[in-house]
């Protein structure tokens, strides 16, 4: 522009000054803020490390001390107090598998049924339904030993009077994880949008047809995830089993209703670890490796299942 000829150098100076100020402002973060930021991020990182450290210590300890005992014998042989080099976990593994099977058989229909009732049928504005809801939340927080006492009093003895059999242990564990399954199933059912239910009902489907053909299929991945996580909790439970007859030393293969006793993985591990001899300690750590592997596999499967089949609405 011609008119601005005389003032051009001054303009240029002003622009340069403004630019320098801006640059300075953009660059100069106060030192104090930088330090605060770093310290805070460091603290958060520390929190993660503490959480991870426990797991890492457990796994390395188990691997270092137990790997020498890892062999087919560990799974194939029954326990022995006399020959630790030949002793294994066979009855305990079979016991745990049967316990899990029983838990699943009981917990899936009852848990899903209860969740369906609460989500689809119960009128949430009624006080008794709210009471049921609150109590299911509370049940999930009850310590497992209490369930053991309950199992002993009502399942092993008392009204059901099943005796110290594996099925009684299964039922006790099932009661223990039932609230978890109900809560997980309810969340899965609630995640199915109402528009799907309305679409189905508007076509003349009954409520049960809607649940069976629309709600349940859409909720199955979530329910399955919840069931697996609940079962993996049941696998690791020891305290209630001790009360309902999981004998610590069983050398034969257990059956669901046999009254000769049964064992389970965590119980057997406990039995080995309390013995003073190094061989049994090694055996216990090998058992921990087996259990950790099974639990990790189950949890990974649950996560995979959730990610694979999760429906995005």
């Amino acid at each position, binding site marked *: 522009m011609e008119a601005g000829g005389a003032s051009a150098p001054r303009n240029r100076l002003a622009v340069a000054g403004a630019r320098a100020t801006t640059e300075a402002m953009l660059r100069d973060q106060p030192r104090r803020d930088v330090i605060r930021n770093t310290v805070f991020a460091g603290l958060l990182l520390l929190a993660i490390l503490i959480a991870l450290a426990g797991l890492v210590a457990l796994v390395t300890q188990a691997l270092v001390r137990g790997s020498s005992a890892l062999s087919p014998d560990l799974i194939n042989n029954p326990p022995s107090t006399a020959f630790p080099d030949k002793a294994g976990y066979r009855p305990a593994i079979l016991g745990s598998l049967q316990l899990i099977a029983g838990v699943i058989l009981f917990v899936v229909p009852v848990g899903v049924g209860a969740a369906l009732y609460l989500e689809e049928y119960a*009128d949430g*504005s009624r006080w008794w339904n709210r009471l049921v809801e609150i109590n299911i939340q509370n049940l999930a927080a009850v310590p497992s030993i209490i369930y053991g006492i309950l199992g002993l009093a009502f399942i092993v003895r008392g009204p059901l009077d099943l005796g110290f059999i594996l099925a009684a242990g299964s039922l006790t564990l099932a009661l223990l994880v039932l609230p978890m399954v109900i809560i997980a199933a309810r969340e899965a059912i609630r995640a199915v*949008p109402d*528009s*799907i239910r*309305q*679409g*189905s*009902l*508007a*076509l*003349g*489907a*009954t409520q049960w*047809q809607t649940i069976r*053909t*629309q709600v349940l299929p*859409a909720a199955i991945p979530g329910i399955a995830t919840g069931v697996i996580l609940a079962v993996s909790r049941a696998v690791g439970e020891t305290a209630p089993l001790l009360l309902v007859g999981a004998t610590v030393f069983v050398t034969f293969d257990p059956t669901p209703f046999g009254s000769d006793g049964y064992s389970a993985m965590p119980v057997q591990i406990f039995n080995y670890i309390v013995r003073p001899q190094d061989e049994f300690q090694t055996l216990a750590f090998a058992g921990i490796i087996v259990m950790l592997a099974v639990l990790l596999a189950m949890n990974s499967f649950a996560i995979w299942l959730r990610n694979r089949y999760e*429906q995005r609405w």
Partner: protein
Amino acid sequence: MAQDEIKPEAARETREAAAERASIAVRPEFRSDPNSPSKEKVFEMKGVEVLYSGVSAVKGISMDIGHNEVTALIGPSGCGKSTLLRCLNRMNDLIPNAEVQGELLYHGEDLYGSNVDPVQVRKLIGMVFQKPNPFPKSIYDNIAFGPRILGRKDALDETVEKALRGAALWDEVKDRLKDNAFGLSGGQQQRLCIARCIAVEPDVILMDEPCSALDPISTGKIEDLMIELKEQFSIVIVTHNMQQAARVSDRTAFLMVELDAEEHNRWGRLVEYDVTEKIFTNPADKRTEDYVSGKVG
């Protein structure tokens, strides 16, 4: 997507047909009594009131809905259009504490009679919702769902094809019937929902703002579809779009919000119900005129 493009000739044809129909001065059969179609009546409402937990949502609705017509319900938000629509196939039953009072006859039968099963009602009176709600299943299974639950499993393939053709969707999806319905565009999903509704061969189709989530091209397709479908079905549509009501409907009901003296409670009230042409060109009520001319609402 090439399939999504509207065929210009076909669209213009149906639009012109619609325009022509709308421009016919008041049709003789309506002239005698504007509030009562002399044709066969599907619904007859006398003093219908809907209450939620004892509070009125709409009050004093008296109107008749004719057979093989498109009836539009228009009015500002909160005037109870959707509430009224949901009375007609007893979808309000699903809301706890909802209550319907007054007389609501369907082909002369009391829709809320003690011997009436709401499930049977919904088989006869289908519904298309505001937001497309396909089931998380294949296109085929979406359509087949209704016939299957009703036990009509014979010739399912033909039923599905007929329904999809009826909803003008067949050509777009015939090669991918096994694909998940969520892969369709919004407009296609809504036509799928219409097809799903047609597949159970209802008598009436209720549409609750069926185009409010769609783009103009999809909206145009669904409007054309409505005009075709009224040959076989009676259609009641709730819409916020007054042009849409003017384009597709034979009769229009205008509802408005009414307040009580203390302005505590509000409910919907039917202001005017007449032939669409008259509502939009020469309404009897000043409030209708203000609304359709865009002065309020």
